[in-house]
């Protein structure tokens, strides 16, 4: 990344997330940060620190998919160094359509962040019934 972009992010003092489970299609992009895009912290940008300009829109799914409660395997727990006290952020990646109604969320592979250790990953659940592109508004 360019020196200018690095400086900008460093001054912003954003925590660096380490993608220990990289996002499918982006295996070499390991360092991201989370930037709030609204006052509530509903819509966030998962912004790459390895490639300037690369970012993903993410939201916590609870408001849109209240029944969504993915279970992860022990190996994910180990990779993210989760324990009983870990504060975990659950986020889903949005594919922005032309409008809110055309915007979809990826429920098949949520992003999990260990807020304590900053270890993160896009977890492939491979469970039947969890769509890659679920309409955000149902």
């Amino acid at each position: 990344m360019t020196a200018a972009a690095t400086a900008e992010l460093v001054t912003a003092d954003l925590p660096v997330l380490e993608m220990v489970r990289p996002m499918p299609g982006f295996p070499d992009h390991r360092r991201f940060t989370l930037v709030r895009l609204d006052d509530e912290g509903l819509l966030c940008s998962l912004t790459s620190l390895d490639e300037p300009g690369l970012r993903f829109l993410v939201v916590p799914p609870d408001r849109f998919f209240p029944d969504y409660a993915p279970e992860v395997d022990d190996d994910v727990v180990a990779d993210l160094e989760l324990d009983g006290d870990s504060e975990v952020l659950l986020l889903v990646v949005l594919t922005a359509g032309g409008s809110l109604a055309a915007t979809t969320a990826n429920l098949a592979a949520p992003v999990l962040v260990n807020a304590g250790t900053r270890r993160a990953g896009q977890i492939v659940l491979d469970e039947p019934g969890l769509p890659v592109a679920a309409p955000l508004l149902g």
Partner: protein
Amino acid sequence: MLVLSRRAGESVVLGEDITITILEVRGDVVRVGIDAPRSLKVHRAELLVQLEQSNRQAASPADEVVADLTRALGSTGGTGGTGGTAGPGEPTAPSAPRPE
């Protein structure tokens, strides 16, 4: 590629600790059982392809698209949201500036 013929109930062993068993063959559907260490990630190939495509499509939306979405979510979220709800940005990005 190694090609083997197997009947239902028969298995193939890969390495030390991976066993693949043909459970059932019905028409053009084959049910396969995989016995492997939990650390080994097993996924349907087409799902990984789908996820790669989805991520590429999701990557780096245009600024105006993000602005529109932020506005639209703000107008829907205002009714259902509680003021005290902690957003995901708070624990990880307490000092995150908001662009624009």
